[in-house]
């Protein structure tokens, strides 16, 4: 089962899907999404236009200094290589910035009432700090550690020195009083991967290139034609934007 470059499968258009799936409209249950699709206009013909600036690439939370640290760190976690772009080109740091500006940064759907006690590791996070506060402290500490060790800020270090700093945080070799260094690293790593692979609507995974590297086809409507195939089926990815405007 060798990988094939052949594009076996066109994304199934929603119109075609409706035609083929035998979805019954009527009766008690009307496929709501499908129902609304019937009214969708045909997509406009593609036209050559100059690339619009990416208005999403501006800061909602970080200071420029914080952004530089985070951008450099994400690139070490997910570096550019022969497979394709790294976290920096994919916009992972913008993704993290935007996430910290909203619900996630404020832990707004999480239980943040006291009293606060240190617990067992098996009881999960028990701190009083919100994610945006943890990032503030963690970024500052990365610069502090870099300066103490190499007399430079994190983003000014050589890549292998940056890796050393990240490893020191990952292993709790860096001792911090307010936050857990490894806990911060874990969050940084997880949010980097989110920034690389989440739908581009959130500001990362630019041009869906994160998905392309992984041969992930994004937000397709259906895989009924693929599911039984023995060969690997490669498709150009589709995003939620395509779903909205397609």
């Amino acid at each position, binding site marked *: *089962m060798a*990988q094939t470059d052949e594009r076996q499968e066109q994304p199934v258009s929603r119109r075609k899907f409706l035609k083929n*799936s*035998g979805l*019954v409209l009527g*009766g*008690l*249950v*009307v*496929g*709501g*999404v*499908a129902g*609304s699709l019937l009214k969708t206009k045909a997509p406009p013909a593609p036209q050559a236009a100059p690339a619009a600036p990416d208005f999403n690439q501006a800061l909602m939370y970080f200071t420029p200094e914080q952004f530089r640290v985070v951008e450099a760190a994400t690139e*070490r*976690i*997910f*570096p550019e*290589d022969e*497979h394709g772009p*790294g976290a920096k080109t994919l916009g992972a740091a913008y993704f993290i910035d935007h996430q910290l500006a909203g*619900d996630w940064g404020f*832990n*707004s*759907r*999480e*239980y*943040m009432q006291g009293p606060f*006690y240190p*617990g067992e590791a098996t*009881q*999960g*996070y*028990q701190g009083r700090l919100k994610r945006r506060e943890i990032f503030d402290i963690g970024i500052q500490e990365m610069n502090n550690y870099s300066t103490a060790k190499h007399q430079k800020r994190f983003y000014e270090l050589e890549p292998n020195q940056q*890796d050393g700093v*990240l490893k020191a945080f990952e292993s709790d070799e860096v001792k911090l009083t307010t936050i857990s260094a490894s806990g911060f690293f874990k969050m940084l*790593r997880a949010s980097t*991967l*989110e920034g690389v*692979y*989440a*739908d581009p609507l959130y500001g990362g995974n630019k041009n869906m290139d*994160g998905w392309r*590297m*992984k*041969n*992930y086809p*994004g*937000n*397709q*409507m259906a*895989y*009924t034609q*693929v*599911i*039984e*195939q023995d060969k*690997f089926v490669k498709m150009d990815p589709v995003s*939620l934007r395509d*779903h909205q405007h397609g």
Partner: protein
Amino acid sequence: MAKKLPKVDVVIVGVGWGGGIIAQELTKQGLTVVGLERGKERKTEDYFMVHDELRYALRYELMQDLSKETITFRSNTRIRALPMRQYGSFLIGTGLGGAGVHWNGQTFRFLPYDFQIRSKTIERYGEKKIPDNMTIQDWGITYDEMEPYYDRFEKLTGISGEENPLGGKRSSPYPTPPMKQTPAMKMFADAATKLKLHPYMMPSANLSQQYTNEDGVSRAACQYCGYCERFGCEYGAKADPVVTVIPVAKKSGKFEIRTHSHVRRILHTGNKATGVLYTDVTTGEEIEQPADIVVLTSYVFNNARLLLLSKLGRPYDPATGKGVIGKNYAYQVIRGGATGFFEEKEFNLYAGAGSLGMTLDDYNGDNFDHSDLKFIHGASISFSQTGQRPVANNPVPKGTPNWGKDFKAASIKYFNRALGVGAQGSSMPFRQHFLDLDPTYRDAFGDPLIRITFDFEEQDRQLAAFTADKCGEILKEMGATQIDVRRELGPYDITPYQSTHNTGGVIMGASPDISAVNNYLQMWDVENLFVIGASAFPHNSGYNPTDTVGALAYRAAEGIAKYAKGSGGLLV
């Protein structure tokens, strides 16, 4: 002073699978039913943008807002319970359809052994096989008595499947044929057959073909889009209460749903429930809804919590083993599995469905000899192709760094080249595992949170190591080039996701000494109060719980109808 509304026949607390089935069945009997749902309304149209891993899978769009209410957890009574501040081990649904919206649709029947676990274990191995603290008990109902209700739930939802060669007898085949078989599923089946095991297609609530049930609900076939667990289905192909029972109940004209209605107490006089007290969370108004019959149909935790908050039933005391509310909390042993890496093969793993897979039960229940094993029961072993999404799935062979260049290369390479064979292990109840009210932490209304006291036991560690090895053997036969076997269970940790199959707390049984409800899920102590859900399971089997929850809801609906028409009293 709470506003008092006119009395209705039946009030149900929580409109998910349990509440939906009760509403559908009781309105057919001419009863008027009010459904109180703390969350918001939901419909299929809501899922237009559902293929969003970040929003739904990683930010828990469909789950309960933990800032308002959570649970607390400790591994034993010697340490302080602390709140589950963020999601991890399990997910708690909310809103119309409840957890029935974000499930995968894996719809297994429990084994005949499950319902008579204590007597059958003693019969085959003697009483000594059961450790002192293990509080397994028979369910007060047999598989044969359950069978017609399983059949009804499977026909309601149109389950796609084929007969389990090692399962209980079926009165009729599954309503729709099995789902499509992927190459990886075929490899699993071939390997298992060579090992003389008995694989079968996983019974699926994601339909293999269009299906119309006897209530006239028509649903489309699954498109294998790979977005089931933690997502709602944009096609209505996955059975959920919003596209099955709820519209039927509403069409009767006898079912009123009130969303944003958070029930806080069950009202009672003497040994009868008189209704419920709830808060309209949009206005803060307190409202009393009187009813002849009260039915609790919320998730496991809130079923037990509402009884404890309302001072109904006898709270369980782990020191004496007496009392029943909160007793026999159980979970699932899910971590004893294996991952196989295939250098030469690349699979279309982005495609899938929540209950697309193959399973075998050779090591489940008492289908194998436990004489020389230090555990009872077992696990179903499955390969599932649920649709791999890119943020959460970065499989790398053991020894690969967790980040950086080598991690990137390996996680990209193996994204479509790694297959997991997993064991869904049963969870036996122990005297020291229970639910009660937390003395410190409160919800947004100031009511105590429910507290879980639970840890894995030697039984679970033995089981996980055993099933991990079996999963590894299957992957070896499948031709994996590297196999990582996870034998170590460790202590129960609330942070990594494991399973949303929490059970117990309001368990059923043959007598009031050992159970809270009878086999119609009627409370022994409060005859017009019925408590429906996996809260009724005296232990958890090596399967997903929903088929059994659905079957028990049908059974309870029958009992409630009988109770409403009769002259009262206990049904058993």
